[in-house]
């Protein structure tokens, strides 16, 4: 076991304290993110109450197969991320690299599937504007939220991929000590991205099918 000094940064005296701070700071950031998506879901809910029937009709048009497969993919990525972060903490190099790499792979898979879904939606005329598929005006509001929510979530997935790839690369060539608190912080962020999807999935895909 190394003493972890190479992971210690200013202004900390001990790695334990630094790890607590990294985790605490990340939690604060997640609180902020929760209000970002919370506000968005609140706005969605208000419109759903105002236009119940239109939202049910529009929700029926989303592609539930893609949505469900993506949910499974993203949940799996959270598992591999947890494995990677715990392995890093225990300074097990190989499981760390495998866990993180699988996470990146799952995340990319998520984006690819999402891309196919967006393409299909676009072709079906589910992007608000001229030639929109449904008649009821408020269905366009549903799909406005659909594109904003999945788009914003997709941006978070992309940011997560960038961060995890960077840390994995650093861990792989030894530039970042495995005891660095960064892996746990990245994992916390990744779980948030996952949890947000767990809320978006029923709101967007299951609402019109109840």
């Amino acid at each position: 076991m190394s003493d972890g000094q190479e992971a210690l940064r200013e202004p900390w005296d001990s790695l334990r304290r630094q790890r607590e701070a990294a985790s605490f700071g990340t939690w604060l950031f997640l609180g902020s993110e929760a209000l970002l998506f919370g506000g968005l879901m609140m706005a969605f809910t208000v419109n759903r109450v105002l236009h119940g029937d239109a939202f049910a009709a529009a929700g029926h048009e989303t592609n539930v197969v893609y949505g469900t497969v993506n949910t499974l993919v993203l949940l799996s990525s959270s598992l591999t991320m947890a494995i990677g972060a715990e392995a890093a903490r225990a300074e097990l190099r190989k499981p760390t690299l495998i866990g993180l790499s699988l996470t990146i792979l799952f995340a990319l898979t998520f984006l690819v599937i999402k891309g196919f879904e967006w393409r299909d939606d676009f072709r079906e005329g589910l992007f608000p504007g001229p030639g929109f598929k449904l008649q009821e005006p408020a269905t366009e509001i549903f799909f406005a939220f659909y594109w904003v929510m999945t788009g914003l979530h997709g941006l978070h997935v992309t940011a997560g991929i960038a961060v995890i790839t960077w840390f994995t690369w650093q861990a792989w060539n030894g530039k970042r000590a495995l005891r660095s608190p960064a892996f746990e912080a990245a994992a916390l962020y990744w779980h948030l991205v996952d949890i947000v999807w767990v809320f978006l999935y029923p709101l967007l895909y299951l609402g019109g099918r109840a």
Partner: protein
Amino acid sequence: MSDIAAEGPIPGDAQPHQGLRGGPSYLTAEHGLAAWFLTTDHKRIALLYAAALTVFFFIGGAGAVAIRMELFTPQADLLSADGYNRMFTLHGTVMVWFFLVPSIPNTFGNFLLPLMIGARDLAFPRLNLFSWYLFVGAGALLVYALVAGGVDTGWTFYTPFSTAYSQSYVMAAALAVVLVGFSSIATGVNFIATVHMLRAPGMTWFRLPLLVWALYGTSLVIVLATPVLTLVLLLIVAERAFGLPIFDPAYGGDPLLFQHLFWFYSHPAVYIMILPAFGVVSELVTCFSRRQVFGYTFMVYAILWIAVVGFLVWGHHMFVSGQSLFANIVFSFLSFIIAVPSAIKVFNWTFTLYRGQITFDAPMLYALGFIGLFTLGGLTGLFLASVPIDVHVTDTYFVVAHFHFIMVGGTVSAFYGGLHFWWPKITGRMYPDVWARFAAVLMFFGFCFTFFPQFIMGFLGMPRRYQVYPPEFQIWHVLSSSGAVLLAGAYLLPMGYLAWSLIWGERAEEDPWKATGLEWRTSSPPPRDNFRTMPAVDTGPYLYHPDEEGPRHDRPQAHQNQGRET
């Protein structure tokens, strides 16, 4: 109880050189551009922020100058109607997000928070630097929007005007505000983590100076409110850029929903702007009346009360927007509730003065001015919180005067007061005190001449955001514009003599005001690592006279420093 720090030379230190205690000062420790622009030293980052904020203060100020010049006469003289809209939008957007919100937290907060709690730096020094670059990037984007043609929506970006009708650079401005929000959140997270994790040994929560408490409360509000602004501006961008009809009434969308989300951030933002000022004024009042702050624990609870209840009053911006009467009454009631902690603070500052040994140094003059102006601003806030009066004065100059009393009379006065108080610590130089007192008094009167007439004309019915008005209001506008000249002088004057002091000013002592806080237990300016040795704390703050004993009146009394060296 050790008083070593205040006693001057360290035993065994043959030639105590102020600038070298604990190493060279942070200003001279490293040289070169990279040592500034890639620094992770919270003190240098505070100066970077100060420089950027000064630039934006001038840009926002230029907008104010254009507005006040145009309003000198009832006709349109200088600006087209559209040009006038762009000017007040520029003024509001720049002043709110690029000056007031970051003003005290990112300059004094950055500089002082670690010093006051006895830490070497903030919890995440590189995040701190990153937040400055975000701020500058956001500023550049905003300047682009302004130079390219400006924005005409007002700083509130109300839909459907901002989404469907405005022909100006709304998207660039909205994205600039989104970016500056990220910068705010990064600072907020950093401050909260620092206060939780890096307090010196013995610095318990109820021994924290009130400025630290105020910054802590502010940071909580920043972290939890700003993302909602980010969201609502992203929705505007989505609607403008991609035609997604989120708020479009033609599809059944709800513009009122925009206002709810916007004010869910923007009312707490008022407390983001004023809470740090409360903290600064608490430090000043207690120091210059040589008196323990009255009701320390209540001051703390008042800060937290404001931070929490500040989230529950946003609906009072929408009394005439079509909100239900029931919601109006609830929001009105909650707005009265939040006046209570503000009143507690005003009363406690006043009681701190009572039987104190008051000296009228420049920082104290600013603080006293703050108390008066904030009280007026706060009381008129109660007028606006009552639905019937608000219906009468909605969108008039009464509202403009009210929030300028809070944000300009309050926050900017406190900012200048803090600048004079901590200037010796930040730069190691003393400024000419006579000039400083003159500037403080000038600022108070200039402010009153500018904004008090606006209460009157607002109550008489002068609406805000119009450049052409009936001639009977001209007298008030002329008063206001003339006062603005004084106020501008009072803002520029300190920039002159403070700059002068950098070269010709007397060298500052370690503790020129005989204050109690940890930031005065190190050299002026402090070394890179802040302290010679890390301090430890055994007492609460503000022991300007012995605990459990009233202040003396027959002679000046010694204060007890909060920290000691380990």
